[in-house]
């Protein structure tokens, strides 16, 4: 890593993902978002005496999908355990989770990211385990000066926790892992993974060690960061903080941190003097979760094409570069758009080129996914066709792009409406070239003296006269022909 070359950064991530179910993990209350407090509870959610949990089959199915899609071994038998701690938004005084026998273990993801040199690198990140658990309720601290308010709408919502191996070595790798994980979970429809709604929350464990050390340094855990950008920024800030401590010869103390995105600053939530003691034990209310091997195989067979396979197929079918294919499948929506545009007649390589560069840049600037824009694959295909056939220069197409993304419309109509047609009339270009040559004898002289750069100047003059609507390569040809020929 560039900013702290003297230390090796070791990062492991724990991601809590909300499964895409209609009801909670152990109760028939609806999963909701943004509703008034306590509008979605049953006696199970409130831990009323005698209420017993009954497991949601759909949640199990989605968790199995996530396990398979992340190359885990899904275990035919797993056990629910009680994780005991006291907090007002945890009505039972324990969270039902899985501990000793989780649903899935031993997976991995191949993660693509740009290294310091800007080259596309692939790295395999191990996944230690995936277990099922229920979410806690929400504590609202701002409503009153003396009280905290508790809303149990979220209590019992089904989650999986995905624990990675400490395999990541930079914030960029961590960001790439999270993006890949989210794309996969969305592809298999295990989760909507909407980060703003807290459906994909990340805890980052960070430690530093001197290069060559085999033992891990003392780690800190940064809790509940809910955007890719913030995760990378939070890790970067924590690496910097730990490096400063180590430089000064201080010891890193185990701690749980929070990240304040507004101030780009970490704050200590609590120091951990002792290991957590949750006194896990098998939940006597729940007998083992058993999933027949045949059922696991059935779920495996029903999964849609995963991003890695799709990337290979797109590269193969359309002759795309590995980097382009990787960028396309990083967002399922972008890859879908690409395939629709190609089906609508867009030349594949040009489509990939434009989508991963010009379009991606516009989307990034606006923080949008392609499906949230007004651009449709058909219009995109006809835009590319205008460029391919020379009716529109690449430059004009780039200028038109933001408008198409925001307002939609038919590119061909927009082009004629705006008079953006490329000047491809050879006769007209010849006349313009002659005009430019006639008024720039100096440039001609220096070109003939061997200063080939003068040609660029002359080209620029012709392009200016066409208001950028000519094909620069053709203009160059015409000028060179006139200069070298006469």
């Amino acid at each position: 890593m560039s900013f702290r070359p003297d230390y090796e950064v070791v990062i492991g991530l724990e991601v809590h993902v909300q499964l895409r179910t209609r009801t909670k993990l152990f109760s028939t209350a609806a999963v909701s978002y943004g509703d008034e407090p306590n509008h979605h509870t049953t006696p199970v959610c409130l831990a009323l005496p005698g209420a017993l949990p009954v497991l949601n089959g759909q949640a199990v199915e989605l968790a199995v999908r996530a396990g398979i899609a992340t190359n885990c071994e899904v275990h035919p038998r797993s056990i629910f355990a009680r994780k005991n701690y006291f907090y007002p938004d945890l009505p039972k005084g324990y969270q039902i989770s899985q501990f000793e026998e989780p649903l899935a273990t031993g997976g991995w993801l191949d993660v693509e990211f740009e290294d310091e040199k800007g080259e596309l690198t692939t790295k395999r990140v191990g996944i230690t385990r995936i277990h099922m658990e229920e979410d806690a309720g929400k504590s609202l601290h701002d409503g009153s000066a003396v009280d905290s308010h508790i809303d149990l709408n979220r209590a019992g919502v089904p989650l999986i926790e995905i624990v990675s191996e400490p395999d990541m070595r930079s914030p960029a790798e961590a960001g790439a892992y999270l993006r890949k994980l989210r794309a996969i979970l969305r592809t298999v429809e295990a989760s909507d993974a909407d980060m703003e709604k807290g459906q994909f929350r990340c805890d980052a464990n960070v430690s530093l060690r001197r290069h060559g050390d085999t033992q891990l340094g003392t780690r800190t855990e940064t809790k509940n960061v809910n955007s890719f950008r913030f995760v990378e920024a939070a890790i970067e800030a924590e690496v910097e903080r730990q490096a400063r401590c180590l430089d000064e010869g201080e010891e890193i103390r185990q701690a749980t941190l929070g990240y304040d995105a507004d101030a780009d600053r970490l704050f200590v939530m609590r120091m951990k003097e002792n290991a957590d003691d949750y006194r896990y034990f098998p939940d006597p209310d729940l007998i083992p979760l058993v999933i027949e091997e045949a059922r696991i195989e059935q779920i495996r067979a029903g999964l849609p094409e995963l991003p890695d396979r799709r990337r290979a197929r797109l590269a193969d079918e359309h002759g795309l570069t590995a980097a382009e294919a990787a960028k396309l499948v990083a967002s399922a929506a972008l890859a879908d758009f690409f395939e629709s545009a190609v089906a609508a007649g867009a030349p594949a390589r040009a489509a990939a080129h434009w989508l991963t560069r010009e379009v991606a840049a516009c989307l990034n600037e606006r923080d949008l996914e392609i499906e949230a824009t007004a651009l449709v694959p058909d219009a995109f295909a006809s835009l590319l066709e205008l460029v391919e056939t020379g009716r529109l220069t690449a430059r004009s197409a780039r200028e038109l792009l933001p408008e198409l993304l925001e307002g939609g419309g038919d590119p061909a109509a927009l082009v004629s409406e705006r008079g953006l047609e490329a000047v491809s009339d050879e006769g007209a270009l010849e006349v313009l070239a002659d005009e430019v040559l006639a008024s720039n004898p100096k440039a001609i002289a220096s070109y003939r003296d061997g200063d080939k750069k003068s040609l660029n100047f002359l080209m620029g003059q012709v392009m200016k006269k066409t208001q950028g609507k000519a094909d620069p390569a053709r203009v160059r040809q015409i000028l060179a022909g006139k200069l070298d020929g006469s």
Partner: protein
Amino acid sequence: MSRIDREDVERVARLARLRLSDEEAAEMTADLDRILGYVDLLEEVSTEGVEPTAHVIPLATPLRDDVPAEELPPEVAVANAPASEGTAFAVPKVLDDEAEG
């Protein structure tokens, strides 16, 4: 040798948010020690090759369809709470260092 000492009892009591008097702690230490002694009897049985038994029912957990059913009206949900504010439960202000664990 005792199987459990005063310190263990105090630690478990703290985790369970129980306040024990000196007398209660002493009594509890002796009681728990006797209980663990009784459980020790089981150590005499050979459990080679026997899977740990968390449940005695030879069944898999039944699964439920993902269909919402009747929920408690919010006023009913908070009806038994010592304090509420609107439809939220009201609890003494939570301090950060009381979080988990």
